[in-house]
């Protein structure tokens, strides 16, 4: 189980994942050796995974981001699997999520311009299998990001 020291380490890591072990230990008021040992233990138990770079698609020229909320035709028993398999082949899909609720699947789609988005939507999204309904939310701004856990 996690103790207060572990929680302190995780909080600091969430706030600044790029810190070196020495810097992290100093912020947590621990020796480097203790800090390192706790981190190793959390990694071994699956509490702590790796670190991933978050790509800034806007900086790469993808100005448009649309969230497509999709309802599937659930009378088809393989609807979920076949839809997701096909959605994986759409190059401009950056996220696929499945849900329990009013929406079945959500796709994040990026595009360079609105015209580009329109083209992806018509040629690649609408041809995905088993779609019963689609709603689009156009992304305007990120107010909070980072996906930190309240530890």
């Amino acid at each position, binding site marked *: 189980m996690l103790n207060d020291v572990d929680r302190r380490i995780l909080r600091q890591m969430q706030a600044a994942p790029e810190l070196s072990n020495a810097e992290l230990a100093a912020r947590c008021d621990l020796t480097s050796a203790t800090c390192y040992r706790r981190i190793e233990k959390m990694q071994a138990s699956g509490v702590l995974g790796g670190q991933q*770079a978050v790509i800034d698609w806007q900086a790469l020229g993808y100005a448009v981001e649309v969230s497509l909320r999709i309802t599937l035709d659930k009378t088809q028993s393989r609807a979920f699997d076949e839809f997701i398999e096909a959605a994986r082949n759409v190059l401009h899909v950056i996220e696929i999520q499945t849900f329990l609720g009013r929406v079945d699947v959500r796709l994040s789609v990026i595009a360079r311009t609105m015209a580009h988005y329109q083209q992806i939507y018509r040629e690649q999204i609408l041809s995905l299998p088993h779609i019963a309904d689609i709603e689009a939310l156009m992304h305007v701004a990120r107010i909070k990001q980072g996906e930190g856990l309240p530890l």
Partner: protein
Amino acid sequence: MIDLDDVDRKVLRALAQDATLGAGALGRRFDMSQPAMWRRIKRLHEAGAIRGRRLVLGHEKLGFGVTVFLGVKLATKGRVSLEDFERAVSAIPEVQTIEHVLGMYDYRLRVVARDIPDFERVLRRRIMTLPGVGEVEANVLLSEERRPGPLG
């Protein structure tokens, strides 16, 4: 805006999986000298291609069993201040991400909770009491995968 070549795309894709890879490891993987790879990574960072790092945590092991996405509509558009709503919702620790969107909802929130009763507590005490909050739709996340997108 930065133009990417094939190696840039591969490097970004590798870093999106493991942000701790250095110029040495990436250089070996893509057959480049360490200094050449270092310059490339520096250029990508300077162009803002990488927004930051995401720490991968075992949600279930840490006791967070549920992730819910909320679509939130503001009740009286024009009369409520977006700033007031955004400030208040940003302060809720269980709200991980907030996106301002256009469409049938005004905001999209990612919320973590220990379990469904805990989520209900957050929804009733924290979300439904936000200034200007109107209709709220909740969808419980079952699975999630991030794709390489145009880097693939």
